[in-house]
């Protein structure tokens, strides 16, 4: 199977603070890759590097067959223009911890926004399609509500539908349930499970160990900006190879 994401030695820093210290990480077509780790371990930053929201400063990060941020030409790599970045991100969906729904648009407009303004689809067609995506996450009845009229769980499901509307080849989830009240977590996880069963390639940064165990193909443990260990979720959870992993799992389970 081909690698959708192939990272080797990826480094990234904010000023003098080294955030990623040489990350090696691979995701194959159709795989659900769960990422866990303490806060500040660089797992969210790595996810943001994958779709170019943060710049990679060292190493190599290939996503969907391209070196993120640079194109090879005449023996050198040339930095992408904002337009080129935008074109690259069309094929990658992202779901944020704080939803980030467009506050001035209804749920339906949120989902139809990118198909209309990025893919250039006719508005009527895009809205019809958006309604189907909202149906898929069980929110067709709330299509004309504004984000502030929806619960956190509903907002996050709209956000997932919004990302799916561009028919991405890869979905990134950045702690999608961390900002939710406990009773709303399951409705979001259920949508993600359905997506995983449908064969979507996903990277999920999460604290939901149960989710990782149930639908994850791999489980990766991040700490101090590097991958400490990675493997089948049941293997990593049952018998962690590293003391750091063992300590972290003991604190969250």
């Amino acid at each position, binding site marked *: 199977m081909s690698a959708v994401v192939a990272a080797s030695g990826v480094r990234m820093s904010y000023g003098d603070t080294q955030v990623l210290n040489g990350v090696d990480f691979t995701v194959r077509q159709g795989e659900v890759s769960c990422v866990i780790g303490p806060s500040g371990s660089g797992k969210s930053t790595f996810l943001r590097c994958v*779709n170019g*929201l943060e710049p990679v400063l060292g190493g190599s990060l290939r996503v969907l067959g391209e070196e993120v941020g640079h194109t090879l030409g005449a023996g050198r790599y040339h930095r992408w223009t*904002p*337009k080129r*970045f*935008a*074109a*690259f*991100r*069309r094929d*990658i*969906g*992202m779901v*944020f911890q*704080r939803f*980030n*729904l*467009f*506050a*001035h648009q209804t749920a339906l407009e949120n989902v139809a*926004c*990118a198909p209309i*303004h*990025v893919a250039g689809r006719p508005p009527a067609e895009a809205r019809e399609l958006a309604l189907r995506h909202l149906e898929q996450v069980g929110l067709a009845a709330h299509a004309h509500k504004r984000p*502030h009229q929806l619960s956190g769980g509903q907002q996050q499901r709209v*956000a997932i539908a*919004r*990302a799916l509307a*561009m028919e991405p080849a890869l979905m990134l989830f950045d702690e999608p349930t961390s900002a939710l009240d406990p009773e709303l977590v399951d409705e979001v996880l259920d949508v993600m499970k359905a997506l995983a069963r449908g064969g979507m390639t996903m990277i999920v940064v999460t604290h939901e160990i149960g989710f990782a165990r149930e639908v994850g193909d791999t489980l990766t443990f991040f700490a101090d900006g590097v991958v400490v260990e990675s493997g089948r979720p049941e293997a990593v959870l049952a018998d962690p190879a590293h003391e750091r992993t063992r300590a972290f799992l003991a604190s969250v389970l």
Partner: protein
Amino acid sequence: MRTEPIITPDGRPIPVARPRHWGRLLAGAGAALVFGWLVLLVVTNPNLDWSAVGRYLFDGQILAGILVTLEISVLATAIGLTLGVLLAVMRLAHNPVLRWLATLYIWFFRGTPLLVQLIFWYNLAFLFPVLVLRVPFTSVGLKWDTNELMTGFTAAMLGLGLNLAAYFAETVRAGIQAVDRGQTEAAYALGMTPARRMRVIVLPQALRIIIPPTGNEFISMLKTTSLVYVVAGHDLMTNASQIYKSNNLIMELLIVASLWYMLMTAVATFLQGRLERRFGSDAVRLVRRNLAGRVFLPKVAA
């Protein structure tokens, strides 16, 4: 405040006395006294011809001036708001040249007095007697006599509009920066370019924050137009001054002009209130929720 009598345990109703606000009474009496005295001084002033005020209140030249004042206010505000948004977007652009240009513009127009700018535009003909718009290296183009083009009206419109743009740009910039960073990230993640993100996602949200203060700008503009008097823009103030220069009824015509300015301001204030009710609460809620945890609330009703 309670007005109903209190029933004692044995069933007797005892009335509640109205509280006396001695402070209010005293302040009210004092104010009425001073105010009444001032009004009396003006009304009974033998040097003031009140019938002239009544005569000129609906004078044709005054009414024509009001129309011009409104025209200049609306056009200059429109120029100022449009250009202000453009300048704000330029100031926040990645392109350093655009940023620098906008900063220079704002510095120049805020750094020179409005009066100087008005007189400058009015006298542009001294610098450029003719204005030519021509396709380079050809003779195809348009040509205007600057003196004909730069009437008091156009000078006023340009001067006031360009000046407002410089001030309004800062308001818009604050509005844009108040929109949560997460909105931008979501837009980028969906594949939008920076320009599209600004137009489709950020500006519509920023404008809701910016709309209420535009009412203030317009009210302020209504009265700033009186400066047009120095370039003979035939607005309310110019026309009033032309009348009093011929008949010397200075105070009477100033009262006429003030009454009209006050009426226009009252109407504009009423409309501004409507505008704020329409957009204000929405904008505040938008910003409050987006910036949860951060200390920022726009002063919507400034």
